[in-house]
């Protein structure tokens, strides 16, 4: 099948997938997907439930390795190097490609320790001062600093859902990744918290390559510049968000965004 890469201007792809297929045991969950992910834009993955968005997202930082039955075929490059090659180091890969999950999952530690976790394990801070600086910077970038600066020692799980999710984003950016993957980061949040996260994504755009999976077409339209539409494990269409939503090439995309199914 043809994937329409609709006359996009040439950009340097941060990550690019080439004919990627993913299997769970014998079941094919992703079928020959190829896509370039640029640094300059936010890329949104949309599609009906079960079409494989999360699966594909997880292949981008090899989180599928933690599922024993999962198997990946094809090639995914990060800065031109295949992340599935044998010499590739998953730890370094995941430090470079961070991830935020659907349900906020702060560790049962203090807010400070949640943020400091990544820098500590990766040895990115020389001393306490540097660590403090990283924590502050990350919380500021995540727009959480003002709300928590007086209670950094409180447990991260004591925050509200929206704050927890921003904490998780802050935690991800504390190690200064190059790509941030977000799997439906707002689906467990109320509209106000959602708006804050969307604002945050707009802030972060450009500094990191961002991929966001979302079920909300409005959200995709608001936050992303590129959109990929997935259906039954295949990527049906990929292009400028504005094009996908106003002028899709494929009938299935049209049907989905007009609410015919999904």
């Amino acid at each position: 099948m043809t994937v329409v890469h609709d006359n996009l201007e040439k950009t340097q792809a941060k990550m690019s997938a080439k004919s990627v297929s993913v299997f769970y045991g014998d079941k094919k969950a992703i079928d020959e997907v190829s896509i370039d992910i640029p640094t300059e834009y936010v890329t949104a993955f949309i599609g009906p439930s079960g079409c494989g968005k999360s699966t594909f997202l997880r292949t981008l930082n090899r989180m599928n390795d933690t599922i024993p039955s999962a198997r990946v075929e094809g090639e995914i490059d990060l800065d031109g190097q295949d992340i599935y090659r044998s010499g590739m180091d998953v730890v370094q890969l995941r430090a470079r490609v961070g991830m935020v999950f659907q349900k906020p999952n702060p560790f049962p530690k203090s807010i400070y320790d949640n943020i400091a976790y990544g820098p500590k394990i990766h040895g990115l801070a020389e001393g306490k001062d540097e660590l403090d600086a990283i924590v502050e910077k990350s919380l500021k970038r995540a727009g959480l600093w003002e709300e928590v600066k007086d209670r950094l020692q409180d447990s991260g799980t004591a925050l509200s859902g929206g704050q927890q999710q921003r904490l998780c984003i802050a935690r991800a950016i504390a190690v200064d990744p190059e790509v941030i993957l977000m799997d439906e980061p707002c689906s467990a949040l109320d509209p106000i918290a959602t708006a804050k996260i969307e604002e945050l994504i707009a802030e972060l755009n450009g500094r990191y390559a961002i991929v966001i999976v979302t079920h909300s077409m409005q959200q995709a339209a608001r936050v992303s510049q590129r959109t990929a539409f997935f259906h039954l494990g295949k990527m049906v269409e990929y292009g400028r968000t504005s094009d996908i939503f106003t002028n899709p090439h494929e009938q299935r995309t049209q049907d989905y965004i007009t609410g015919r199914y999904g």
Partner: protein
Amino acid sequence: MSERIAPTRTTAFEARLKKRYAAERRFKALGLTSILFSVAVLVFLLGTMTLNGIGGFQRVELEVPIDFTQAGIAADPSTMQQPGATQALEAQGLRDVVQFFAEEHLGDEAASQFGSQAWRDVADAIAADPSILRGEANFWLPASAGLASGYQGEGSSEMQALAAQLSEKGLIAKNFDPGFLSRSDATDPQQVGIWGALKGSMLTMIVTLLLAFPIGVLAALYLEEYAPKNRWTDLIELSINNLAAVPSIIFGLLGLAVFLTMFPNLRSAPVIGGMTLALMTMPVIVIAGRNAIKAVPPSIRDGALAIGASPVQVVFHHVLPLALPGILTGTIIGMARALGETAPLLMIGMRAFVATPPDGFASPATVLPMQIFLWSDEIDRGFVERTSAAIIVLLLFLLVMNGLAIYLRNKFEKTW
């Protein structure tokens, strides 16, 4: 922006990464070592028990051919079936006959080294088949404890010498001793057996099962299906959870202070042991039973209630049968624990020396683990092997019970 070098791509990071992977490997190796340690201990434990225990199923015996035509012993086949047969043969001087032929065949010194009960084996053989009195028969009879350890290269030097002498002539040997499974306790390691203890264990377990199973299941049903949520129910739950974790010796103290005060005549009896162990096993069955009952999907209850069954009918016709495999699994595990239990029984006097198998729930008895404990205290080296052999028998029983429990668990695990 893209010229920015992320801190995760520096060479320093990669150097740290090497160390982190080394730590990872060390940690994993530590985990594997821990597991291997446990497995090694298990293998070592079972290995030593088996190695020692094999000898425990054997005993050192001396060869004695007896020519009954010269002995002048008569036996009426019909009386030989009756309990007094051994006494009748003794009255006819069978003891001396055996002694005579032993001296003839082995020499005086060796003939004095028979176990005191050796002639009984001959008597048993005659009782089983009186026709041997018409000819010659060859017997292997148990040696004394001293000679037996001499044969194993232990004990006094005279005995070692004598054993070496005899063994050169092929008159002494260590033979498989089936009687170990059918005799009872004795002071001579050559004469001991575990049947008495085994029977005591069985009687005790029957009492335990008869008490703990119904009470445990009924209590589990009540707590899971009917109990109102109130302070009494909480208290019951608390008691059960705590009883399941109370040291077993405390149950022994209870048995001593309550049961033995109520029934002072039943000291050492399986019925008291069984009652004590039942109190210990009951909480295990309740907890397992509640989990099994909880696992029965509510839809089954709703379905039965919807066709007009009463709550009691729902439970006894629908819930209980479905929960039964789980309850049985828990029961078997609890019973296996009770079977291996020693401490509480020490408290209620089941450590008596019991040379005859108990003939009922009220007669003095000992149990298999207690027999192991008692033998382990014996000084005579011959008891070491016997103890290990008894341990093997006990472990086999436990293995079968636990195997059954695992089988049941796997077979009936969530079939709906």
